[in-house]
C-alpha cells in the first residue's frame, strides 16, 4: 500500500504531531511498510473469530464510588509547566 501526503497529514493532525514537509515522504514510506505488515492478516482465517481485546476474560472489578486519595493538588500542580492559583495555564482558547 502507499500513504499519500494528505492521509499522512490527517493522521498526524489526529495524533497532534507535526510532520516536516521534507520528512513527509520518508515517514509515509515507513508507515506504509508497517501497515503492509498488518496486511498479512488479511489472508488469515479470521471470519467468525471473536476479537480478543485483553488477556483477562472477566470484567473488571467494581470498587466503591468513594474518594481514596487525599488532596494532592499542590504536589500535582507543581509538575505542570505553567500553573497559577490552582489552575493549569494554557494559551487563550477564546478571545
Amino acid at each position, binding site marked *: 500500500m502507499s500513504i499519500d501526503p494528505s492521509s499522512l497529514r490527517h493522521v498526524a493532525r489526529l495524533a497532534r504531531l507535526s510532520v516536516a514537509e521534507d520528512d513527509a515522504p520518508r515517514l509515509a514510506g515507513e508507515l506504509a511498510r508497517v501497515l503492509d505488515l498488518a496486511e498479512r*492478516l488479511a489472508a488469515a482465517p479470521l471470519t467468525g*473469530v471473536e476479537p480478543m481485546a485483553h488477556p483477562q476474560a472477566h470484567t473488571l472489578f467494581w470498587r466503591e464510588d468513594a474518594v481514596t486519595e487525599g488532596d*494532592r493538588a499542590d504536589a500535582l500542580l507543581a509538575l505542570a509547566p505553567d500553573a497559577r492559583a490552582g489552575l493549569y495555564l494554557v494559551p487563550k482558547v477564546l478571545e
Partner: protein
Amino acid sequence: MSASIAQLARALRAHETSSVELTQRALQHARDQASLNAFITVNDDAALQAAHAADAALAQPDASALTGIPFVHKDIFCTNATRTTCASRMLENFVPPYDATVVERLAVAHAVSIGKANMDEFAMGSSNENSFFGAVRNPWDPTRVPGGSSGGSAAAVAAGIVAFATATDTGGSIRQPAAFCGVTGIKPTYGRVSRWGMIAYASSLDCGGAIARSAEDCAHVLAQIAGHDARDATSVDRPRDDYVASLSTPIVGLRIGVAREYFGAGVDAGVGAQVHAALRQLEKLGAVLVDIELAHADLAIPAYYVIAPAEASSNLSRYDGVRYGHRCADPKTLEDLYTRSRSEGFGAEVQRRILVGTYALSAGYFDAYYLRAQRARRLIADDFSAAFNQVDLIAGPTAPTTAFKLGEKTSDPLAMYAADVNTVAVNLAGLPAISLPSGFSEGLPVGLQLIAPAFAEARLLNVGYQLQQATDWHFREPSA
C-alpha cells in the same frame, strides 16, 4: 564471580559484609562501567541512606532475602522524588510525587535501589537505541546492542553492577535483552505484578518482571513484587505460589513442547544449536520433549504491531504539555502547544508507533486493522491453550539471533521488529515466560525461552533452576 542473592543474603546475616559496603561497591562499579550507559540516573545519596536503613533492618525478624541488596529500577517505574524519564525527552525532568507499587514493595523489603536503568523510549524498541539518553552497550561486546527495551536492566546485571533489576515486557522487553546479555529474565502472567505507577505503553500487554543472573534470584525478586494491588484494576487477586520453595522440585516427566515455528527460517543456526543443546540437557534431567505446532505463530508480529501501537497512541495522548512533561517554548495556541510539545518531546520510533496506531484506529480503517488484529490475537491465544492440553511448557529460542551490532537495524523498523518474532505472542496471550542463558554462539549469549500456562511462574522458575543446577552458562561473565 558475582554472588547470588542467596549468597549475599547469607553474607549480610553473617556480618561478613554490610548493605552499605555492597551499595558502595555497586555505585563504584556503576561509575567504572559508565561507558555501558546502562543508567539514566545514579542516586548515591539515596542509595546509601537506604543501605544504612537496610543494615538496621537486617536485624529484624521480618528481613527478606532482598534486604540490603543493591539493585536498579528500569526508568519506567515511578519513583517518588527521583526523576522518572521513561528514556524520553518528554519526561526528562519529570519527578513523580509517588512510588509505583513495584517500587513500594521492594522498598518495604529494604532492597537498595541505586538508580534508574536506561531503556528504549517508552519501552518501544528491541535494541535500546531509542533512548533519549543514548544507546546502551552490551557488556559482552560494546559494539553490540544489549537488546531492548529493558537494555539497561539487562546490561547492569550482566556487567555484575547489581544482582537484579526490575524490568517490563510488552512484546519481549524482559526476555530478549536477558537473552542478548546472557542473564535470566522472567515475564510473569499478565496481571500478576501491579502496573500501578509503571508508565503505560500498551496496557493489555504491559507486564512488570525481573532480570537477574539466575532463576533462583528471579524467584526471590518475583516473590517480592508479585501480588494483588487494588490500585491496578487488572491486578489479579489470587495468592502467589511459593516460587523459592518449588525450585527444587524434580522435573522428571515434565512435558516440554518444542514449537517448530520458533525454529523458523530467521533463526541463526548457532542459536538453534545452542537451544537444542539446552533442551537435551533438560531431557537428561527427565523432561520429555514433544514436537508441537503453533499454527498461527506467523500472525503474532503483524497482530502485535497493530495492537501495541494502537494502545500506545491512546496511552500517549496524555502527554499534552499541560499537566506535566515537556512543553514547547512560547506556544501560540492550544493546538500549537499540543503539537509542538509532542513533536519535540517524542523520539522518532515513538512518533512512528503513535502514527501507526492512530491510523489503525481511525475511521474507515478500524475494522481492517485493529479488529482484524484482535481476531488474530484470539487465534494465537487459542493455539497456546490447545498446546497446553498436550504439554506443560513450550520451548524455543528467545530471539532468532544473538546481539546485533549497534546501528545495524536502526534504519529499518521492520528488521528491528523481526527481533521480537518469538516473544510477542506470549504478551498477546498474557502468558508467563522466562529466558534462560543457554550457552554461546560465536562468543555471544543465546537465550532459551520457556512459556507456561497462566500463573505457572513457579514451574518456569523450577525448570530454570534445575537447568542451572546442571549447567554453568548463567555463571559466565563478560571480561570487564
